[in-house]
């Protein structure tokens, strides 16, 4: 277990906990993006570059974008009654 792997694990733990402890939903989505990036670094450091390539885009861009757009739709539908 090299230093880099320990640091990556710690980063995943910290960002994961921070995502759960956020109160505002929009900020939670942004921290979720950081969690996705930390997870991508973890995969890379643990010798899984293919998964890391997918996770970089999916975890930092696609999933937070989908979550934000769903929040907008929910907000709009709640506002329209």
């Amino acid at each position, binding site marked *: *277990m090299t230093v880099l792997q320990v640091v990556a694990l710690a980063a995943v733990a910290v960002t994961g906990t921070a995502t759960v402890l956020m109160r505002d939903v929009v900020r939670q989505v942004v921290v979720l993006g950081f969690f996705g990036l930390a997870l991508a670094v973890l995969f890379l450091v643990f010798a899984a570059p*293919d998964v890391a*390539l997918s996770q970089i885009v999916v975890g930092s861009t*696609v999933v937070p974008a*989908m979550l934000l*757009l769903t929040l907008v739709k929910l907000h709009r539908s709640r506002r329209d009654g």
Partner: protein
Amino acid sequence: MSTGARRALVVAGLAGLGLLAVWAVTGLPDFGHPIGRYGVLAPQVALAKRHVTDAVGGVTFDLRGLDTLGEELILFCAAVGATVLLRAERPGEEEATEESQRVPPRPAGALRALGAGLGGPLLVLGAYVVVHGHLTPGGGFQGGVILAAAVLLVYAAGQLIGLEHVRATTLVELAEAIGAAAFVIVAVGGLVFATAAMANFLPFGTSGSLLSGGTIPVLNIAVGVEVAAGITLILTELLGRALFDDREEDS
């Protein structure tokens, strides 16, 4: 039970669980050990029999290709499901076009500059990752999401994508369907041209060159097209079809 007693119970339980977890993790073997027999065999078979240098790609699209077929259809069904749900709840055609024609506020200069500068390189990078999936880490899914991210970046930088003579949304739907169908057709082709479904029936070529691995680069391209189109479709439906410039041409 009072709050204090509950809290004490939770802390005691979590502490016990934490001690057990630490004991378990320190008793694990080192990362990478023990090396299983499949881990030794898979790269050898992928290189010797299929002439691919990316063992992960070889396993995903050839040795365990049937699982990937299921995965692709899962993404296809997710995109179709999201499209059906989001189009069914749209209020009416006039209000829908009015909502999608509403121009969003002009994004910041830095974002526009980034979008202009990175849009083209992201497309090239995505195509590179898709096509070289059997040589280097990457492949259809990885390149496909990069392509979808390129489209999203262009939209976030304030530029709507429009095409002449064809609606861009229709093109994206067609691309997704063609990608999924191409995968299934290649799988059935294995049944027709070789002994079993998903069998690798194209010539293998020399390892390390672009044209190697038989059906693996073909499947990579099919998956890349399908994933890019699927994720773009989900995003554009969530945006109320505002990602593309779909004004009807009078041609």
